[in-house]
């Protein structure tokens, strides 16, 4: 130890070793404010100290990539001088403590990350994971999170177009709320956070700073115990109306040439925004704390620097442009204050009452941020389970109705009808299908987007599970006809200090990297959320992928519902009947066992490329990816999504093949890389598939009103639909 003073009793989540490094950097004992700044900057949430070593291995380049990880969001070229800007971010810990505000501010935070870069947000998505439906808190959390996601997105007027909602007991004490925003900008009007230049005014805009969310980033970097509810004061409160004003004001200012750099105040608030701007611009920043607009009186520098009050931005302007900028923010009735200046000191200096109250050298604060090579143990391989090792049901139809009428596969309509998914007038493919498709305003092209992860696969085999998350998101974007461009990832794991958890992270990052490489879909942004544990029990590893693709002509998009009777139904891709880790296995045995379905990346790509070409050529009338529940569920979903005709009958299917494998494996196997498609030109599908060397098997025809699977009785589609729609509203109403 380089200092003789006693260590503070409260190291604010820093380790003894980290504190020693701080003493070396400072050459003295840090004061309370300084220690707070180090603590949040070096928190897991802000520093990625456990994951950085592995994140660096992910592919991040490609001709389409304008900006990869490291900025507020990733930027991808979508042609015609336009860029898609997107990122996913977690708000897990706060949402468990206060579901409405936790989820709402998660949406608000990710929106700011995207419009900070000059983009108008055009779509929100999310990935939500809740505990067992039987757990006493689950209903309350589902209701609160969904209302919070909707409350924020609906008010600000950005459509919420897609996402996932799943249940598993491993999330009983740690729900996951991952929010993703996609925006569109001109490629020549993208804003970054580097505050290059000295003597430039540092400007604070947006809401006033209050005492909410202080040390939120630190809270998000630790496990929960039974006292989680006592952390409510660390949860921020969202105001989507103010964010709407901030969005419009920022975009108005961005249309001028006043901004040098801009950064939203998210996790760690004013601290991380000012440090990042200074660090990236290689300058120092002096902030006069007294000039920060404050909601409450008597706030200390520590509180102001660590507050996570929402709807705030920090900007560096060209000198002399302050008055013009101020007028814009005053028009939108937002606070605007010049609170500091850039200098060549390389330090972050805080003034309070004219006195220096904190003084930290920025380069070591950033560069010396800890990076750990935490010990990890690979997840032991599991045996492959043959379909014949799992009992066949008495009736496939009974399993099918149980699955589509249960929590895992029931309709999520109750959720997405609470989200305005149409505002902005460009939602071409609405929620409920594979990927959402949003037209680029004023053009005929569109962006397809989806979020995916199958945590039970990742838990069984992190490498395969990591590959599968990327592959499924890529497949969903492909299934509407779009070309996937890039992904954003949200790595949700338990405590990284446990080697088996670290092994899950290492394995899934490896798998993701392999899939991103093979599918030409680099990672351009992301977020890591660790310590999702309560009393030592971690969540299923949940590395969520958000994929964005582009489609030249949205009029050619294909949706998943059956369109007409008398069309040929094909399965694209190979069906082996893989039941290990399947929903069928869990339904029949009560257990998720064995190895998960492997992802053949070469086949994945070939199959997807064929589907995309068939859609572009107008050969397909419907397309749906095969995932949870296998072929039987995919076909059923296409039938249930079909519109009742004027005579009142939905469109069903008659599957008229005899599988050459165990029928229950054929029906419910979760083999990867597959799509169910329909066509009125079956020869064209077969010929194109043969030419591409892709398996495409005609399995039946669309018919009116009923669904008939191999060796089952016909089931009414209307009944299936009613069953599928019932579970979630009934569950929520039962509280």
């Amino acid at each position, binding site marked *: 130890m380089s200092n003789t003073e006693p260590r503070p009793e409260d190291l604010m989540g820093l380790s003894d070793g980290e504190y020693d490094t701080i003493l070396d950097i400072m050459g003295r004992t840090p004061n309370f404010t300084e220690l707070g700044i180090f603590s949040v900057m070096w928190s897991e949430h802000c520093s990625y100290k456990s994951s950085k070593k592995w994140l660096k291995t992910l592919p991040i380049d490609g001709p389409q990539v304008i900006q990869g990880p490291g900025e507020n969001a990733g930027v991808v070229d979508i042609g015609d001088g336009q860029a898609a800007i997107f990122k996913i971010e977690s708000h897990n810990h706060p949402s468990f403590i206060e579901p409405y505000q936790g989820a709402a501010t998660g949406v608000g935070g990710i929106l700011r990350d995207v419009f900070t870069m000059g983009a108008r947000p055009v779509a929100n998505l999310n990935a939500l994971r809740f505990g067992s439906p039987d757990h006493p808190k689950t209903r309350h959390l589902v209701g609160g999170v969904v209302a919070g996601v909707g409350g924020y997105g609906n008010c600000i007027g950005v459509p919420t177009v897609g996402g996932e909602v799943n249940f598993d007991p491993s999330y009983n004490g740690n729900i996951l709320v991952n929010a993703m925003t996609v925006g569109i900008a001109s490629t020549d009007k993208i804003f970054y956070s580097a505050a290059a230049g000295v003597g430039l005014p540092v400007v604070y805009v947006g809401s006033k700073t209050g005492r909410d969310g202080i040390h939120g980033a630190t809270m998000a970097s630790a496990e929960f115990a039974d006292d989680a509810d006592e952390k409510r004061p660390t949860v921020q409160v969202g105001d989507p*109306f103010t964010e709407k004003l901030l969005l419009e004001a920022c975009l108005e200012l961005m249309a001028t040439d006043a901004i040098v750099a801009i950064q939203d105040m998210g996790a760690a608030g004013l601290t991380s925004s000012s440090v990042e701007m200074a660090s990236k611009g290689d300058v120092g920043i002096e902030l006069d704390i007294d000039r920060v607009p404050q909601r409450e009186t008597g706030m200390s520098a520590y509180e102001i620097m660590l507050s996570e009050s929402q709807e705030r931005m920090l900007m560096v302007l060209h000198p002399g442009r302050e008055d013009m900028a101020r007028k814009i923010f005053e028009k939108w009735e937002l606070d605007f204050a010049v609170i500091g200046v850039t200098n060549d000191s390389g330090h972050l200096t805080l003034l309070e009452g004219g006195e220096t109250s904190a003084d930290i050298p920025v380069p070591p604060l950033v560069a010396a941020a800890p990076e750990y090579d935490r010990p990890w143990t690979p997840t032991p391989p599991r045996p492959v389970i043959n379909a014949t090792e799992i009992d066949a049901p008495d009736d496939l139809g009974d399993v099918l109705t149980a699955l589509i009428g249960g929590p895992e596969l029931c309709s999520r309509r109750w959720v997405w009808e609470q989200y305005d998914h149409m505002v902005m007038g460009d939602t071409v493919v609405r929620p409920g299908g594979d990927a959402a498709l949003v037209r680029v305003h004023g053009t005929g092209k569109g962006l397809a987007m989806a979020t995916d992860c199958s945590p039970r696969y990742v838990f069984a085999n992190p490498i395969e599970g990591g590959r599968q998350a990327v592959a499924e998101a890529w497949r969903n974007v492909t299934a509407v006809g779009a070309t996937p461009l890039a992904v954003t990832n949200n790595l949700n794991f338990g405590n990284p200090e446990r080697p088996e958890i670290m092994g899950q992270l290492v394995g899934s990052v490896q798998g993701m990297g392999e899939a991103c490489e093979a599918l030409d879909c680099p990672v351009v942004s992301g977020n890591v959320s660790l310590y999702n544990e309560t009393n030592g029990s971690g969540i299923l590893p949940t590395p969520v992928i958000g994929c964005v693709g582009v489609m030249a002509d949205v009029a050619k998009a294909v949706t998943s519902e059956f369109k007409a009777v008398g069309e040929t139904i094909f399965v694209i891709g190979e069906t082996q009947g893989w039941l290990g880790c399947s929903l069928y296995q869990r339904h029949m045995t009560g257990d998720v066992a064995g190895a998960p379905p492997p992802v053949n990346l070469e086949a994945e790509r070939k199959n997807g490329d064929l589907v995309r070409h068939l859609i572009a050529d107008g050969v397909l009338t419907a397309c749906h990816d095969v995932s949870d529940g296998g072929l039987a569920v995919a076909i059923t979903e296409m039938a249930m999504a079909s519109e009742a005709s004027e005579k009142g009958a939905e469109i069903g299917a008659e599957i008229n093949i005899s599988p050459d494998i165990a029928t229950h494996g054929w029906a419910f196997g979760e083999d990867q890389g597959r799509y169910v498609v329909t066509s009125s030109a079956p020869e064209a599908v077969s010929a194109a598939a043969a030419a591409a060397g892709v398996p495409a098997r005609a399995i039946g025809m669309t018919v009116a009103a009923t669904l008939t699977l191999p060796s089952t009785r016909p089931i009414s589609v209307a009944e299936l639909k009613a069953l599928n729609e019932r579970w979630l509203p009934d569950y929520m109403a039962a509280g």
Partner: protein
Amino acid sequence: MPAAVIVFPGSNCDRDVAVALEAASGRPPAMVWHQESALPPSDLIVVPGGFSYGDYLRSGAMAAHSPIMRAVTARANAGTPVLGICNGFQILAEAGLLPGILMRNASLKFVCRDVDLRVERADTVFTSAYTQGEVLRVPVAHHDGNYFADPDTLQRLQDGGQIAFRYCDAGGNVTAAANPNGSIENIAGIVNAAGNVLGMMPHPERLADPLLGGTDGAPMFTALAEAIAA
């Protein structure tokens, strides 16, 4: 003359309705900021959807007191057509231009989905391209769309033929199951006594483009475009 679209802080369907108006009329509408005190010359005023002032206090309550609303009221009283959609309906009701109020949905939840609407009045400037009894498919997206009026007011609305749209099923039957928000008598839209002010919760501008899943909303804008061009 072009239409005028009023923009409040928190409006978020202003662009959507401007797109529908321009598609129908070939002319972009004038976008008028709420702090203006005068309206540009225009033969149609649209109060768009959104969350003016965050819907804080009460939906539409604060926007109804914006400076521009005095001008809107004067023009409405002089007979200029005024269309309020969703939050616009709430604002017109709060401003006293339309009777009744919009309460929180009976479900207490935001609801966004396509609904069927029965056209009850096809003889207004807004609905002249429809026929009476026609069923339209148009989306709703609101938290506070539960229309309520006291019995006397309701009687006046009925007697005066002021109910413009009702929520119905696909066959045009007005049923409780077809009511997305608990509105009294399944009321989805009303006109004032003179018939020149229409407030409706559903969003016709959202289904006025075949790529977005339907065009039942488009005739309203076509009819308005023709009326203001004449």
